[in-house]
């Protein structure tokens, strides 16, 4: 299975995402922001980092990259898309996901090991988790506070589209402790914490993040 990883100028965690894909048994394919060609991938990851320096708003400039046109199209046709951290921000700015990610409530960049609870395993990215499973993976961002209006929030909750929540104290002020959400179809997922940094206890707080990558493999390989 071919999973694409997009590199925008300023993307940082593309190699980590590719490593995680490879570890899960799939093939990682590099995609370049300036190239609209998705190279026959079956799923796409928008990794973390500071694309365009996070200038203006995180994700605001990357959203207009040529590759995003293809991603938006493919997402509409059901291709699984995962945005991690900065990738989540790009997905929100692209309106593939509702809401926005704003400045952390304490105004500091925060890097720590974070417990999250998987609250939906209906998406192709969370399939291998059991519902309410708790895992510890890194969080690291300065603009990770998920905000949206009340109506959107109610919708997300009612439709079971909150896919992960922070456990314990709120690390960044996100509404309803939201760590990740999906679109209505469930194929597009945004996640603030970093599963690609938790694929091996040697280099991360756990190996549990690998579940996101094996999920996508399991969803595609029937």
């Amino acid at each position, binding site marked *: 299975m071919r999973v694409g990883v997009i590199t925008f100028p300023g993307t940082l965690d593309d190699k980590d995402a590719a490593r995680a894909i490879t570890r899960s048994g799939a093939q990682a394919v590099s995609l370049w922001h300036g190239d609209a060609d998705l190279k026959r991938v079956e799923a796409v990851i928008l990794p973390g980092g500071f694309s365009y320096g996070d200038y203006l708003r995180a994700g605001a400039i990357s959203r207009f990259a040529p590759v995003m046109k293809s991603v938006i199209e493919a997402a509409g046709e059901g291709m699984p898309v995962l945005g991690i951290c900065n990738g989540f921000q790009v997905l929100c700015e692209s309106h593939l996901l509702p809401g*926005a990610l*704003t400045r952390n*409530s304490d105004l500091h960049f925060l890097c720590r090991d974070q417990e999250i609870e998987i609250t939906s395993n209906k998406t192709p990215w969370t399939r291998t988790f059991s519902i309410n499973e708790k895992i510890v993976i890194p969080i690291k961002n300065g603009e990770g506070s998920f*905000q949206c*209006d009340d109506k959107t929030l109610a919708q997300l909750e009612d439709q079971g589209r909150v896919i992960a929540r922070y456990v314990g104290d709120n690390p960044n002020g996100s509404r309803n402790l939201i760590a990740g959400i999906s679109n209505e179809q469930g194929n597009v997922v945004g996640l603030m914490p970093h599963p690609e940094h938790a694929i091996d206890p040697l280099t991360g707080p756990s190996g549990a993040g690998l579940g996101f990558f094996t999920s996508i493999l399991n969803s595609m390989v029937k």
Partner: protein
Amino acid sequence: MAKIVVDVMLKPEILDPQGDAVASALLRLGFSFAQSVRQGKRFEIEVEGEPTASQISQVEKAAELLLSNSVIETYVVRVEK
């Protein structure tokens, strides 16, 4: 050269931790004038000569598309001397 200014502010219902932090810092410094503080962005765009109507409508478009995020922000465009 003239200047077109775009002010972008968070919508009132969106949490503004920066504004709140400023408000409490003001109090700590003994300044009591503020009922509330909101922090937004100000873009100063230099254009050649007097801004034309079409230029301003272009800026409006850019403000809508790029400079602000309508999910959380509002914007105002104006010409400044």
